[in-house]
C-alpha cells in the first residue's frame, strides 16, 4: 500500500492550532504568538517554522512560490516546493505575480506584492530584544510595557563602532506603532516593502515555536536616530546579467584573482528584466 499523507503533510488538528495562532498574530500585529511546533521532515534552521505556516494556510487552489536568498532554484527552495507538490498536489510557480503564496528565506521579491497574496517568512530568531536581554521572561514584560529604549542601544553601538548604523539584515522595525519586531533575516533593503504592503506577511519560527504577522496596509517603521536616519544599501554598478539598478545585488567572486561581479539576488526579477522566458 503506498504511503499517503494528509493534505499538506500536517494533520488537521495541528493545522487548526497553527491557524488559530496565525489569527491571533494578525489581530495583534508584530506580537509573537507561541504555538505548538510540530516535527517536520527537515532540520531546524531549514525553515521548519515557515513550512508549518505554509502547510496550515495552503489550499488546493494555491500556487506556491518558494525562494531562498532570492533564488527560485536553490536546494532549499526546490525541496520545499517538491514537498508541497507531493503532499498537497498543488501547482508551484516561479512568477511572483502568479503566486498566491510565497514562502521565503532572506528576501521579499522585487516585484511589488499584490492584494490577496501571502508571504511566509522562515524565522531563525524571532525575539528582537534577545541581543539586549537574553531572558525570555523579561523580554515578554519589556514588550508588554513597551520598554523599547534598549533597542536603540543596539543601533547606538553600531554608530559608536562604525560611524553609521551597520546593521544590514534583521533590522528592527516597529509595527503599527506598537510592537518592535524582528523582520527576520531579510536585508534592510526589504524593510520598506513591509510598510503599508497590500499583502499579508506571516512569520514562522520553528525552533522557537512562535508566529507573528504584519497584516496588509500596516505601518512598519525601521528604527533609527534623528541624526542617523534609516538608509538603504546602495551599489555603484548595475546587475551584470539584466542591468537593473533598482534591485538588491549579490556580490559574486568569479575567480581566484578576486574578480567580482554583482547580480540581482532575486532570480525571477532578473530573468524578467533581462527579457528571458521561463522554462
Amino acid at each position, binding site marked *: 500500500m503506498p504511503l499517503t499523507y494528509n493534505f499538506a503533510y500536517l494533520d488537521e488538528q495541528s493545522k487548526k492550532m497553527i491557524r488559530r495562532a496565525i489569527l491571533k498574530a494578525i489581530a495583534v500585529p508584530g506580537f509573537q504568538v507561541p504555538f505548538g511546533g510540530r516535527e517536520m521532515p527537515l532540520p531546524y534552521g531549514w525553515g521548519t517554522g515557515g513550512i508549518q505556516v505554509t502547510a496550515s494556510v495552503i489550499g488546493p487552489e494555491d500556487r506556491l512560490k518558494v525562494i531562498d536568498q532570492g533564488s527560485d532554484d536553490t536546494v532549499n527552495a526546490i525541496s520545499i516546493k517538491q514537498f508541497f507538490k507531493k503532499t498537497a498536489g498543488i501547482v508551484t510557480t516561479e512568477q511572483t505575480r502568479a503566486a498566491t503564496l510565497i514562502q521565503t528565506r532572506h528576501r521579499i521579491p522585487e516585484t511589488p506584492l499584490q492584494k490577496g497574496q501571502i508571504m511566509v517568512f522562515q524565522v531563525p530568531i524571532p525575539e528582537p530584544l534577545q541581543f539586549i536581554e537574553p531572558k525570555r521572561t523579561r523580554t515578554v514584560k519589556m514588550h*508588554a510595557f513597551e520598554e*523599547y*529604549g534598549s533597542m536603540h*542601544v543596539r543601533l547606538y*553601538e553600531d554608530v559608536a563602532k562604525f560611524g553609521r548604523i551597520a546593521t544590514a539584515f534583521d533590522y528592527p522595525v516597529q509595527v503599527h506603532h506598537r510592537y518592535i519586531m524582528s523582520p527576520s533575516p531579510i536585508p534592510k533593503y526589504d524593510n520598506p516593502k513591509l510598510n503599508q504592503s497590500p499583502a499579508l506577511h506571516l512569520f514562522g519560527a520553528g525552533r522557537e515555536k512562535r508566529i507573528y504577522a504584519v497584516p496588509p496596509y500596516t505601518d512598519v517603521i525601521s528604527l533609527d536616530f*534623528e*541624526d542617523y536616519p534609516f538608509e538603504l544599501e546602495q551599489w555603484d554598478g548595475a546587475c551584470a546579467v539584466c542591468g537593473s539598478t533598482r534591485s538588491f545585488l549579490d556580490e559574486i567572486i568569479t575567480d581566484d584573482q578576486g574578480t567580482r561581479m554583482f547580480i540581482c539576488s532575486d532570480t525571477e526579477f532578473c530573468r524578467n528584466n533581462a527579457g528571458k522566458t521561463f522554462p
Partner: protein
Amino acid sequence: MTRARQEHTALPLLQVRHLCKFFGRQMGCHDISFSVAPGEVIGVVGESGSGKSTLLNCIAGRIKPSNGSVLFNASMGVIDLCRCDEALMRRIIRTQTGYVTQNPARGLKMHISAGGNIGEKLMAAGMRHYGEIRKTALMWLEKVEIDPGRIDDLPVTFSGGMQQRLQIAANLVNAPKIMLMDEPTSGLDVSVQARLIDVLRKLVSGLNLSMILVTHDLAVARLLCHRLYVMKQGEIVESGLSDQILDDPRQPYTQLLVSSVLKP
C-alpha cells in the same frame, strides 16, 4: 499650582510603612517603617543576613513585599509602589529611581560599551538623537572621573572601581529622585573606595539627591549618611543621626557592631 507643588515638596520623598517580607517561614524583614526627605541620605547598616538587601529590593520593586507599603512621591503624585499596577510601578522605578548593585557586572551590560550603558536610560526615556546621547554620556564620564576617551570601551576592560563609577553614572543620567545602593563599596580596594565615596559625596550634594545606602561598612556610613538605621534579624533595632549612633551606640548589638571596626 505653585502652592500644590510646594505641598508636594514638603512631603517626604519616600515613606516605608510596616514593610514585611517573608520567604516561606524565613523572615526577610519585619515591620520596617521610615521616611526619606528630599536630599537626604539614609544608611542601613547591619551584619550580613540582617535583611538590609531584602529591604532595599522591596523598595526597588525587585521583590514583592509580603505586607506594608512603599509610598513614593513621584512626579504624578504619591504612589504606593506595592499596590499600583505593574506598568506604572516599572515606569516610576525606571525613570525616577536608580539602583546600584554591589557587583557592577549585574548592574551594567558588560557586552555594551560604556557610552551605550550610560545612554540606555536616555534612549529608554525617548531620546533619539545620537549626538545628544553621546554628549551627555561624555559629560557623565567626566563627572564620575572616567577618561572620556574610554567611552567606546566595554566595561569588562575597566577596573572594579571604574565599573562601579560607570554604574553610578548610568543610574544618574536621567536625574532620578532617589538612588538605592546595595553595598556599592564592598569588593573594592580601600583607596578605590575612598575615591568612590568622594565622587558620591560630590554628586549627592550637587544634585540634591536622596539616597538609601545599604552597607556594612561603618566608615562609608559615617562619611555619606545623614541618618542611620541599624538592622538585626530583619528588624530595625536602632535609628538616629549617623554621628550620634556611631559615637554613642545604645543597643548592645550596635555597640558590638561599632566596636568591631578595626582602628589603625
